Every structure is written in structure tokens, then in C-alpha cells.
């Protein structure tokens, strides 16, 4: 046990020392506030849904039970998915593993220490954001303290089971495949499952619930499905213990809790036992460089010298080659593609013709809203690719510092590298959604021109703030985005888009109304259009120049 606690201690000590400075405290307070808003939002929605269910006679409880079961199955699924990625990093890819394995300690103990860390890391957030849903059950059903105690007593073993299952899957997979590739494969599989679930859900058309006739048949269908779920699923044991606690049935609570905890103990025992035989074998295999899925072609990009400076050509070539050769980027592209497919699909199924409002007005209204929504999609993509672009230089950033270009020039190069693909993507997205909405030529022109000016600002914010808050030590771009700087980027980008959209909303609304009523455009509206256009243009230019300058200054100050 002494070896085990010694292995866990550095992590605990680092945790205690994290964020001792004033700046760190301020960052934490902001993150906590944002986190709490989300938490409260989940609680509010859950509370509303459960209160609504309670108003439906007979079926309300069934629906609430179904929802609880779905929440717990999702919890287990998320837990397994998250723990697979964490366990892979902790057990096979962390930089300190060579040091840890060189210590006079058994690989089984190393596994156990790392698995405990992985369980805590992958479960805490899932638990925290499941709590508001479960607490809302307690509030709506007016239960006693037993239920709230049982929430913790049942979620912890469920997390342990999920993490143990993930560890067993990872241990088995790494014996067959190199760890770096296993991560990509699991990510692909997880995302594919998510997209399939979403599309299946969409095909079921839950909006039919809004139709009173269809609602009755759907409820009747749900009622027939109220059969007990598989007794082999750990989420069912948690479900049974929680529903027993909701009823105040102490005997059943004890029985099902015992089932949960014995399941957790058994799965932990299995994972540790399995690790004893295969963990070191897999770790050893990870040390050898994996064969690559894509060979290095050595082809160069014929970028004309007249249009591109030497450093620009060098960075464009480097970024493109590095991007395609890094398998971890593929899963991200897949994730973004899934996001876009879902986004476009939602537009294609909008029942505009059934709406009680004038279709042309509604189409234009949706097109306007679509500008904001599509911008959020682009923010997400910028956050994932442009924001970490400075940090992903990593230890090799010395090459940039030592090369004869200024940091300002380096950031402008990064800006242009990411601007063109993101601009093309965003224009395609807005044109495609506008075509699906059958909008007027005016709205088509307005949205494409707005994006032409808006996207450079978003990309500059991404590159500039990414440079202002770099994390050269991180190997994972996703981790870079979820930092304080990433949050600042998201917040400023959303505010920036919000202001531009609000600026445009007034004149566009009056223009549409005038068109709808068939009256000519008043002179004052034309003036308003010009003022709005120049105000938006000034804002866009500010959004381009200020963040890049800020990023260059902050980055230079570090050295």
C-alpha cells in the first residue's frame, strides 16, 4: 500500500498547489460561475420536465422512471467513453510513465494508482452534472434525506464499474493495437454511436409529441415499453436502488446498493487482476513507434513565390502536413463533420409550411437566426483548430522564436492559414442552410456578406487569444481549448457575434416589414442601413486587429 500511496501522492500535492496565485483564483471563480450556471440550467430543465410529467395522470410516473433509466444508461455510457480516453492517456501515453515504471514497484501497483486517478478524473464531471437531474427527482417527489444519500452511494459504484470496464477494454485493446491508435479508434466508434443515436432519435420525430393525437399513441407505446431493463446492466441496479429510495423502501435500497457495491468491487478486482497479466506487456508495446496509417509522401505544395513570402510558404506547408499526419486530428474532423451534418439535417426537417405565420417572413426570420447559429458552429470549429494553433507548436516554438520573423508576423501567418478554410466552410454552411430554407435573394446576400466580414474577426480572436494564453506543454488540443483562455475566446466571440447580429436586426426587420407590406423603403431606413454597415465594419476590423496585437504582445512578454 505504501507504494500505491506514494504513486498517487504527487497528483494530490499538485492538486493542492494548483491556483494559489491571485490570477488563478480569479480564473477559478469565473470558471466556477459558468459551471454553476450550467448546473442550475440542468436542474431547472429537469425540474420543469418532471413537474410536467407529474401533471399527466397514470403515465407521468412511467415517463419519469423511463427518463431516470435513460439518464443512468447515458451516465454509464459517458463514463465508459470518458474513462477509455482518460485510461489510455494515464496508463500508456503520459510522459512520466518511463520514470514511474523505472521505480522498484510492481506494474500492478502502477496500474492501480493510475486507474484510481483515471476513475476520479473521468467521473467527477459526469457525477456533478448528473446530480441536478437526480436532485430534481428528490425535490419533485418530495423525498427524505435517504434519497439524497443514496444518490452518492449509487453513483460512486456506477462510476467505478464504468471505469473498470473501460480499463479492461483498454488493457485488451492495447495488447493488439498501439495505444495512440486505440485512442483514435475508440473516439471514432464513440462518435459514430453518438451520431447514429441522434439520427435515430430524429427519425423518431419527437416533435410529434406536440401533436395531441400523436402524443396519445406515443404515450401508449411508451407504456408498453415499461418492462424492466436488463438485470445485468449496472445502471439497472442503480436505477432500482434510486427508485427504492424515492419510495422510501429501505430494505430494497440496502439490497440494490449492496448489489452496486459488490459489482464495483468485483469489476475492480477483475481489472486489477487482468492488469497483472497484460498491463506491462501493453506498455512495453507502446514504447515502439507505431506504423503510420498515412505514409509521408514528401510532396511539396507549389505555392507561388510572388504571392507567398518564405515564412508563409513554410508555415502553410508545415501546418497542412502536420495536420493530415496527426491521427488525433481526424477524430476531431469527424466530430466537426458530425456537428455540421446534424445542423444541416435539422434545417432540412423544419416544417415551415405548417407554420401559422407567413412562410416568407418565417423563412427570412430563420435565415437571420441561422446567421447566429452558424456562427456558433464556426466558433466551435475555430476553438478546436485556430485557438490551439499557437500552443500546438509545443516545445518546437523555439524554432519560431529563433527564426527571423517577428511574433506579430507569425500570428498573421497563422491567421491567414486558418482564415481561408474557415471562411469557405462558413460560406458553404450559410449558403446550404439558406437554400434549405428557400430564403429571399436579399437574405442570401446579407448573410453571405455578413459572414465574409464576421469570420475574419472570429479567426483573429481565436489565433490572438490562443497566443495570449498559450499552453505549450499540453499535447492535447481539446485540453487547450478547455482552459481559461478558451473560455475567454468563447465568451468574447459570442458577444462579438451577438453585437453584430443585434446591429443588423433593426434595419433588416424594417426592410422585411416594408417588403411584406409592399411599401417603398423610407430614406431614414437607407441611412440606418449605411450607419449599421459602417458600425459593423468598424467592429469587425477591431475584432481582427486588437486580438492579434494583444496576442503578439502577451506572447512577446513571456520571453
Amino acid at each position, binding site marked *: 500500500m505504501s507504494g500505491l500511496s506514494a504513486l498517487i501522492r504527487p497528483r494530490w500535492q499538485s492538486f493542492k498547489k494548483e491556483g494559489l496565485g491571485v490570477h488563478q483564483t480569479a480564473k477559478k471563480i469565473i470558471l466556477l460561475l459558468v459551471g454553476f450556471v450550467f448546473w442550475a440550467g440542468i436542474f431547472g430543465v429537469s425540474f420543469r420536465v418532471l413537474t410536467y410529467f407529474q401533471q399527466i395522470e397514470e403515465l407521468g410516473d412511467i415517463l419519469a422512471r423511463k427518463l431516470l433509466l435513460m439518464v443512468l444508461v447515458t451516465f454509464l455510457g459517458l463514463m465508459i467513453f470518458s474513462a477509455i480516453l482518460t485510461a489510455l492517456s494515464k496508463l500508456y501515453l503520459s510522459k512520466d510513465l518511463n520514470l514511474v515504471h523505472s521505480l522498484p514497484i510492481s506494474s500492478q501497483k502502477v496500474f492501480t494508482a493510475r486507474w484510481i486517478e483515471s476513475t476520479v478524473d473521468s467521473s467527477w464531471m459526469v457525477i456533478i452534472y448528473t446530480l441536478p437531474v437526480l436532485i430534481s427527482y428528490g425535490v419533485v417527489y418530495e423525498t427524505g434525506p435517504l434519497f439524497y444519500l443514496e444518490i452518492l452511494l449509487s453513483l460512486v459504484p456506477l462510476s467505478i464499474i464504468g471505469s473498470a470496464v473501460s480499463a479492461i477494454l483498454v488493457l485488451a485493446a492495447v495488447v493488439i493495437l498501439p495505444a495512440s491508435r486505440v485512442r483514435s479508434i475508440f473516439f471514432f466508434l464513440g462518435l459514430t454511436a453518438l451520431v447514429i443515436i441522434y439520427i435515430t432519435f430524429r427519425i423518431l420525430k419527437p416533435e410529434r409529441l406536440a401533436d395531441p393525437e400523436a402524443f396519445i399513441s406515443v404515450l401508449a407505446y411508451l407504456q408498453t415499453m415499461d418492462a424492466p431493463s436488463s438485470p445485468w446492466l449496472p445502471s439497472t441496479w442503480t436505477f432500482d436502488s434510486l427508485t427504492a429510495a424515492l419510495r422510501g423502501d429501505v430494505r430494497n435500497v440496502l439490497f440494490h446498493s449492496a448489489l452496486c457495491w459488490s459489482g464495483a468491487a468485483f469489476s475492480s478486482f477483475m481489472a486489477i487482476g487482468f492488469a497483472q497479466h497484460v498491463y506491462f506487456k501493453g506498455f512495453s508495446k507502446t514504447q515502439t*513507434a507505431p506504423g503510420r496509417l498515412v505514409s509521408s509522401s514528401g510532396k511539396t505544395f507549389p505555392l507561388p513565390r510572388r504571392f507567398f513570402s518564405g515564412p508563409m510558404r*513554410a508555415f502553410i506547408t*508545415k501546418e497542412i502536413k502536420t495536420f493530415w499526419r496527426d491521427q488525433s486530428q481526424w477524430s476531431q474532423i469527424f466530430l466537426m463533420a458530425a456537428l455540421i451534418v446534424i445542423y444541416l439535417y435539422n434545417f432540412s426537417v423544419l416544417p415551415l409550411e405548417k407554420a401559422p405565420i407567413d412562410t416568407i417572413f418565417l423563412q427570412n426570420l430563420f435565415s437571420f437566426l441561422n446567421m447566429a447559429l452558424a456562427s456558433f458552429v464556426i466558433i466551435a470549429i475555430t476553438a478546436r483548430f485556430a485557438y490551439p494553433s499557437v500552443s500546438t507548436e509545443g516545445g518546437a516554438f523555439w524554432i519560431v522564436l529563433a527564426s*527571423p520573423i517577428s511574433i506579430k508576423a507569425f500570428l498573421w501567418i497563422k491567421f491567414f492559414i486558418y482564415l481561408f478554410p474557415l471562411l469557405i466552410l462558413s460560406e458553404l454552411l450559410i449558403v446550404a442552410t439558406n437554400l434549405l430554407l428557400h430564403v429571399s435573394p436579399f437574405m442570401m446576400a446579407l448573410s453571405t456578406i455578413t459572414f465574409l466580414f464576421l469570420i475574419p474577426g472570429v479567426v483573429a480572436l481565436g489565433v490572438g487569444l490562443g497566443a495570449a494564453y498559450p499552453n505549450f506543454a499540453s499535447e492535447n488540443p481539446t485540453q487547450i481549448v478547455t482552459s481559461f483562455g478558451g473560455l475567454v475566446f468563447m465568451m468574447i466571440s459570442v458577444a462579438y457575434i451577438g453585437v453584430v447580429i443585434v446591429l443588423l436586426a433593426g434595419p433588416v426587420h424594417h426592410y422585411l416589414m416594408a417588403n411584406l407590406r409592399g411599401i417603398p423603403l423610407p430614406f431614414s431606413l437607407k441611412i440606418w442601413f449605411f450607419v449599421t454597415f459602417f458600425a459593423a465594419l468598424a467592429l469587425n476590423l477591431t475584432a481582427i486587429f486588437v486580438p492579434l496585437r494583444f496576442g503578439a504582445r502577451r506572447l512577446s512578454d513571456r*520571453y
Partner: protein
Amino acid sequence: MIKLKNLTKRYDRITAVDRLTLSISKGELFGFIGPNGAGKTTTIRMIGGLLAPSEGAVFIDGVDMAREPEKAKKRIGLIPDRPFLYEKLTGMEFMCFIAEFYDVDRRHLEENADRLLTMFGLENRAHELIESYSHGMKQRLIMSSALLHEPPIIVVDEPMVGLDPRGIKMVRDLFRDMARSGTTIFVSTHTLKLAESICDRIGIINGGKLIAVGTMEQLKKAARVGEADLEEAFLQLTQTEASE
């Protein structure tokens, strides 16, 4: 060629480099030695333009690094101690990448890249990804890329780390030949034997301060160690400084 004027670097309350003044002339091979944490790497990083000094200035071939960093950096080939590179590029692609920054033309690049990669024993691995290279191979690649644009000044931090005996001998001979043909070389090292065997002058830094500078003979004289080697002189000088 390299002039350091009152060069100072402070990190909060710690002064890593303290008013360092030094001048290195054309074709000189200058050795920079000192105990761990003495300020060697910080000095190298300031000379290479990787770090801005808190006070003082760095002049490269008469160009102020703070005022015209791009112009100054074009005259330097920097070789850091830790070979962080773009792992997803091949060795040859990395050479092409570096060439773009120094206006190396196509013909010159093709000739020099092949010659340098062969010289550093990387010709058979030039089209493999850097991530598959060993530490020593990465170090050799950095050296190749630093020499690609034929800079008049080479700044090296711990050149022998990760190199095999053949590599060490090759680098030692190369530095000597380059200095003879007019290249200025500033080399920071822990390997006192290397400094003793190839350097024209040696500077000793301790606690951020330059405590001694001169030829081997001058250092021995300053340390009062008679005919002993550099190691003895180094220990004597750094010990005296510590006790003061």
C-alpha cells in the same frame, strides 16, 4: 561578431544573468562553461533572440537584437540543448521549412541539405518522420538545419548531448574547421574536455556573473593552478566565487 553589453535577466527576485559584458570576434571559438543553474542557457537564449533581456543589449555582427531582431537572427544558426522539432515532418521537409526563413534558394537548398544530412549521417532517414528519430538523430538534424543557410555565427547549447563518440568527434572537427574559415562559434558546454580542446577563449559563469574569461593559460593563471587542466581551474574559480 557577438557583443554582450551589461546583459541581465531577472525572473521575479532571481537574477539569472547579471550584467554580463563580453565581446567575441570573427572566427573565434568561444567556450562558455559554468555549474548547473549558472545562467548559461539563459545567456544563449538571449543571444539567439529567444528571450528578451531585462537590461543590457545583444549585438550580432553590429545589429542590435532588440531593435532589429529579424536582421540579427538571419546571421545566427542556433542549436539548442533540447531537440524539440515538428515531429510530423520528415527530416528533409524540416530542412525545406527552415530554408524558407533564410531565403535559401532552391539550388542551394538541394545541394546543401543533401550534403549536410549526409555529413550528419541522416541521409538514409531523411524521408522518415522526425517522430521516429532517436534523441541523437534529432540533435544532428537541428545541427544540419542550423548550418543550412551558412550563418556567420553559430550559437550552440550543449552540442554533445545525445551524440555518439563518432558524432562527438565529427562535431568537434567541424567546429574547428568552421572557426578556421571565419565562422564565429559560441558554445556552451559542461564537457570541459571539449572546451579545453577546441576553444580559443573560455568564459566561466557562476551565479549569473561572468567570473573569468580568457585563454586556457589565462584561466589557469587566474585560478593559480599551475599546469593543471581546465577542470581544476574551473573548480578552483567556481569554489572561490562561491566562498566569497
